[in-house]
Each structure stands twice: as structure tokens, then as C-alpha cells.
């Protein structure tokens, strides 16, 4: 048995970190960036000769650019995980929105095609919401199933538009590939979006209900919450977010493939959990997920540039995720 408890500076620091778990995450992100700089000197430095001249935000701009769609999909996971759900259809929904938008544009014009794309996504969300909110199918199965169904529908749809060509709306290109002051234009979408999500989670009645449902649904019902309404709205919202991310991704990648955003699904779950969101519900932070997305992107870069066998790269990717979350759990003392 240990000594009598005394309050020391280290204890107080520990407590501070526990109450602000994003701080150690950011510290870890910086650590990774330093490692990157050591590995490829001059890479992250804003001032250097070389690409884009004396003052270059090339690298940091790229980092942020590719982290944005990931962070948006992570928002889908954070929000649904708050209610102890998950949205495994988010990747497919993003792909559907992107593909539909690109192929419908030449046929019906840009505005309508975006509307169609968002509605297609929202439809998947509505089905998810009805399935998990009203019929009470486990969200994991529900969203997995709708993801499969949506993939199938996309394949069928694809056969009708092989020869119509594709067109990517100009402002999506501007959002996806353009830069302002060296920073990606995607931020014009993402900053308001992030403020909206953070506000929704912290300062809105809807956000409070998400936490409540994940913490104790019975208690929420007792307080007069009609949980099915909340869940239906949640899954529709999640799908709309995923569709927006898909549209942005379309502008970034500029090739509407049938699996465009699917590879972002697992990383989006990873970003959410690295950021401190619990899949058992009731606890989560979008700020953490954003940092999580940045961390994943830096690891990606790090591993792309490391010259080693592919197996070792994949392995290190896994080990770093493990290390981040283990450290996080140690510091915050919560799981």
C-alpha cells in the first residue's frame, strides 16, 4: 500500500491533462511531425528554398487538405458512436454522392446533380435511422447492410452512365484543389462545418440527447426523450455529412471511381477512437477526432516516405495507432 496522498505539481499536471485530453494528442501529433522533419529535413519547414520558393506552406497545406474529408467522415463516427452506434455506410455514402454527382452533372446540370447526390446519401441515412432507431437493428449490422445495398445500387446505376461522361462541378474543384494563402480551400467548407459540429455537440439540445442516449437510453426515455426521432435524425445527418465529404473528395481526387471514398472508412473509425470517442457511447469529442485525422495523415506520410517493405509499413501503422490510444488511456485514465 502506498503513501498518503499528497497533491504535487505532477498530480496537478496529470489532472489538467485528464480534463483536456486533446492536449496530449496534439503533443503526439507534433512529435510525429518532428520525426518527419528529422527523417526528411526541410520537409515541413515553412521557410526554405525549393518547392514554391522561399515561403512554403506546401506540406502543411497538403496535410490539412487530405485530413479534411477524413475528419468529416470521422464526424459521422463520433456522432453515431455517442449513441453507442456506428456508421459503417459512411464510406460508401460518400462514394455514392461523389459518383452520382459527377455522372449526373452532364445530364441534369450541376445544381440538380448535387441535390440528387445529397438526397441519395440522405436516403441511405433514413434507412439506417429507421432500421436502428425504430426497428432496433444493431447499427453495426444495419449500416453494414445498407452499405452493401448502396454499393450494389451504385454498380447498377453505373451501367447506365458509362457513356454519359463525367463532369466535376467547378466550385467543387475550387474547394478540392484550390488554395488561398497557401491553405486548401477545403477549409472554407470545413471550418464552418467543424464549428457547427462542435456547437451541435456542446451547445445544442440535440447534442445533449446524443450523449444521453449513449449513456442510458432508458433514463432518456424516462425524461421524455423519444429516442427514435433522435436516432433517425442522427443517421440522416450522418449520411448528409458523409455525402458532403464525398463531394469534397470528388473535387480533390477528380476521378469518380466506384470505390472512391471506401478506403476512408476504417481510418475514419480510427480517427474517432484515437480522438477519445468511446464506441460504447456517451463519450466523444470531435476536436479529438480532428487531431486523430491529422495524426493518421502524418503517419501515412511518414510511412509513404519510409523505404521499407510494405509489410513493415502496415505493421508500424498499426503499432502507432496502438501506442497513441494506449498513451491516451494512460493519461486520461478513461477507456
Amino acid at each position: 500500500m502506498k503513501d498518503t496522498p499528497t497533491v504535487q505539481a505532477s498530480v496537478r499536471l496529470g489532472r489538467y491533462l485528464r480534463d483536456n485530453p486533446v492536449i496530449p494528442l496534439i503533443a503526439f501529433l507534433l512529435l510525429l511531425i518532428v520525426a518527419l522533419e528529422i527523417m526528411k529535413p526541410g520537409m515541413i519547414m515553412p521557410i526554405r528554398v525549393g518547392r514554391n520558393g522561399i515561403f512554403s506552406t506546401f506540406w502543411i497545406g497538403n496535410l490539412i487538405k487530405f485530413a479534411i474529408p477524413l475528419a468529416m467522415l470521422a464526424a459521422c463516427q463520433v456522432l453515431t458512436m455517442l449513441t453507442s452506434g456506428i456508421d459503417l455506410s459512411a464510406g460508401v455514402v460518400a462514394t455514392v454522392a461523389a459518383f452520382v454527382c459527377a455522372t449526373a452533372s452532364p445530364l441534369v446540370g450541376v445544381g440538380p446533380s448535387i441535390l440528387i447526390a445529397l438526397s441519395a446519401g440522405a436516403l441511405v441515412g433514413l434507412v439506417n435511422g429507421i432500421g436502428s432507431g425504430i426497428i432496433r437493428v444493431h447499427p453495426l449490422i444495419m449500416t453494414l447492410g445498407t452499405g452493401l445495398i448502396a454499393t450494389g445500387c451504385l454498380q447498377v446505376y453505373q451501367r447506365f452512365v458509362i457513356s454519359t461522361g463525367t463532369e466535376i462541378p467547378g466550385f467543387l474543384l475550387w474547394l478540392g484543389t484550390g488554395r488561398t494563402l497557401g491553405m486548401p480551400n477545403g477549409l472554407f467548407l470545413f471550418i464552418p462545418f467543424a464549428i457547427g459540429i462542435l456547437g451541435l455537440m456542446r451547445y445544442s439540445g440535440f447534442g445533449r440527447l446524443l450523449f444521453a442516449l449513449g449513456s442510458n437510453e432508458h433514463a432518456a426515455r424516462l425524461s421524455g426523450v423519444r429516442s427514435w426521432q433522435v436516432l433517425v435524425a442522427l443517421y440522416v445527418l450522418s449520411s448528409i455529412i458523409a455525402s458532403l465529404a464525398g463531394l469534397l473528395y470528388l473535387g480533390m481526387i477528380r476521378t469518380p471511381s466506384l470505390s472512391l471514398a471506401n478506403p476512408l472508412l476504417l481510418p475514419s473509425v480510427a480517427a474517432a477512437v484515437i480522438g477519445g470517442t468511446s464506441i460504447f457511447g456517451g463519450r466523444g469529442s470531435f476536436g479529438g477526432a480532428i487531431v486523430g485525422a491529422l495524426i493518421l495523415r502524418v503517419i501515412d506520410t511518414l510511412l509513404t516516405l519510409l523505404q521499407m517493405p510494405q509489410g513493415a509499413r502496415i505493421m508500424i501503422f498499426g503499432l502507432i495507432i496502438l501506442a497513441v490510444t494506449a498513451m491516451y488511456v494512460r493519461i486520461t485514465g478513461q477507456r
Partner: protein
Amino acid sequence: MTNVQHSNPILDAASIAKSFGPVRALTDARLRVSAGEIVALLGANGAGKSTFVKILTGALSPDYGRVLIRGKPANVGSPAKARASGLIPVYQEPSLIPDLSVFENLRLSGTSVEPFLEFVTKLGIEDIRLEDEITSLPLATLRILDLGRALASNPQVLLLDELTAALPTDLVENVLKVVREQADAGCGVIYISHRFSEISLLCDRASVLRDGQTVGELVIKPGVEEHVVELMLGAKIDLYQREGLSSALPNSSTPRLSIKSLSAEPKLEDVSFNLYSGEVLGVVALEGQGQDELFEILSGFRRQTSGAIELNGNLVSFAHPADAIAKGLMFVPGDRADALLAERSVHENIALPFSAAGSSWGPLKRRFENERVKHAIEKLQIDTRAQGEVRRLSGGNQQKVTIARWLAKGVETLLLLDPTRGIDVRTKRQIYRLVRELATQGAAVLFYTSELGEIPLACDRTIVIFNGRVVDIIDAKDATEQVLMRAAYGLERQGTEA
């Protein structure tokens, strides 16, 4: 402070300290139990009793302190080790595995079946089947099974943490009898309860905790109660003062709530009564007489099979708790685990109903909420040291949060299902005062309690439910425990007709 002779204690714990982050649950706790002795562990909500029990039985590890068993340093590093040393607890939360059968639960803890069945029968649960799944059993039965399992594990020291809080009167009697017998057979018992009637009947000695520190040890004898309370609270309090005035005028107006021949599967047969605004109507019943169904129907959790509910003279029916709340019927369930968001803050728990309706999904009204929540916390004197997460509050303070929620929202009709379960004397008084005050302001309160002594202290009238029917309506001033007890068992009152 009386000094007590300890001849050869079985269990001797001293200088126990435990902190949860900033909360110092125990600072200097001590306790000794000898064979054959029943020691009451007393203290206000949050004093550290449960933490103490958890430490003694290996469920928590102390920051500091020493535990001796029969004079030798003991290893209570895990529940399994404590169990092996003969320290057998019954924790306040049911600790049986929900998805396993009774038999599998026994097998899991290595308890033999025959003594278990014997004890359980003796405790008054006769229809138990070993293949029953725990989830399918009512709370009171679970408490008895928990105790039966503990008794069948050959305890040297039995630690009972508020075992009787969720039990109806008849079962409590059995428990006291069996625990006494166990002590007479040489077992040491540590007994935690907030009910003085039980303490004075059962216990030999009391050890009092205040703010994590043992502040006194004394022998139980008549008249010691006042002293105990003073030690517990650090202040005097009148135990038997009736709160407020009887304010109801039952026959002068239409009732707020009129229940007509309500029935529901499986227990509720045919219940009718009126609840007037301005009154606190008690409900007295033994375990499982239909009171749970009654409260569930009134709060919108289930539908009646027949019968009608009239609110201010209008027929109503509820498809969802939200409907009941919209009509001003607020429900506090008996099991606080059903009502609380364990990982969320006290504030969020209390403010939850403000956001429930679809129309309030938008921005929170911070200022408005803060005021209401603060008022409710002050009114109920909730200990908010660990307010970041409700699960870190002590049981009693959690209980208060479930009531504070409706206080903040504003109630017209309050449905309380055993609200003083596991609450200390001072808080109980606060709750009596609170319901009286609400009634004076025009609210109607339906108040079920498993502790019969509370009826005259808080209510105006009481109905007695037996076998799913109202068998008696008794005026609070006539409601002695004997009268209520007879009625609760379905025996007719002498002299008068119901």
C-alpha cells in the same frame, strides 16, 4: 464516545484512506468486528461506507491502511482473495450476473446449492428455480439471492451494504432474523443501513463515519439514536418531527388524477383512487402487489389492459413517457440506475428534460438552465464534489439527482417510487419537506415507500394495495406501522370499514 472492549476481533481495519482523484472518500477509517457481533456502519450519504466495504472485500484497493484478520495481516487484494479469507460482502448494487441462471451464478462463485436454497427459503423466497435467469427476476428477489449466496459461502465476516433499502417490510423482517441467527452461530457482521429501526433491533455496536473518517464507536442501547445522528451529521436533528401541515381538501374539488379500475398484467387487478392537488398520497404495499405496474402505467412506460385515467376530469392515455410528462406527470423510478446518465455530469442529468422535446433540439438556454439546476441542487443539498460524472457520486446523492431533475423542470404531479431508498436521515427529512412544499404549492404527489414509518411523516392519506387492488385508504394520522402492516398483509382493520 464509549470505549468498547474488543476480545479477539476477527476483522480489524485501521487508518484506511482512499481518494478518487480530487475526492477523498476515506481519510482515516477504522473498524473491528468480533465473532458473533453485529456492528452497524453508519454515516451520511457520501461518508464513505460503501468505499470502506469495497476496500475490505478487495473490490477496491486502498491508498493507505492496514487490514488484520484474526490478528494477522490479511491479503484482500482481490475479491477472490477476500472471499477466501472469509470476508463475504453483499454490495449495494446487485452483483449477480444478469445473463446467467441462478445455478450458474452459484457455480461461478463456488457456492454450494443446498445451503443456498435453505437460506433463500428461510428468507422468504420460496418459488425460486435454479434455472431462472437473473434478468427475469425482480430487484427484491435479487437482493435476497445475493444474501443467500453470501450466507452459503461460509462467511466469517458478513458485510451487508444497504441490503434492506430495496426490500419490502416482510422480507426485511426475515433478513433481520436470519442475520441474527448467523451472528449467534459465530459470524461477525458489518451492517450498513439508513434505517434506525433496523439498527436498534439488530446491532450490538455502531461505528460512525463522517467525511471519510471514523468519528465514534458506541454500543447500541435505547436512546442512543440521537447521539448517533449527531455524530453522523455533526448536528442535531429531530427524528420524528412531522413535516409541514396537512393541506389537502380532498372533497372540495375535482381530483387532479382519478384512477378508475386500472388493471395490467401480471399483477395489477383493479385499482381505483383519487389524487388531489395539494396532497401527498402514500402508497403502501408489500413486494409485487402491483405497485410497479401502477407507476409504470401512470408514467407512460406501459399501457393498461383495462380501466381509465382521468386528469382534471379528462380521459388521458400515454403512449410514451413524453406524453405523461407533457401532461405534468413526472416519475422517479425505484432503481436509480434506470434514471441516471452514469457518465454524464450532474448538471446534464438534471437538465436533460429541458432538451427532450423535438422543439428544443436547438441551442441550449444556458442561463435559464443554470438557474433552475442550481436551485434544485441547493434545495436537495446534493454533494457535488464529484459532479463531473454522476456515477462517482455516492448512492444517496445519485438518488437525489433523480428527484432534482423534476424539481428543476417544475412538477404538477410527482410520482415517487421509493424515493428514500438508501438515503440518510437528513436527506430523508429534506425529501419529506420537499414533497410537502410541492403539495402546498399545489402539486399532487403519489408516494410509494417501502419504509412504513415514513407514511405519517410525509403523507396526508395513504392507499394500501394488496393483490393488485386497493384494500384500504388510511388517514396519515392513524397510520401507525401496525395498522399499515396489517392492511398491507390484506388483514382487515379492526372496527372501521375501508
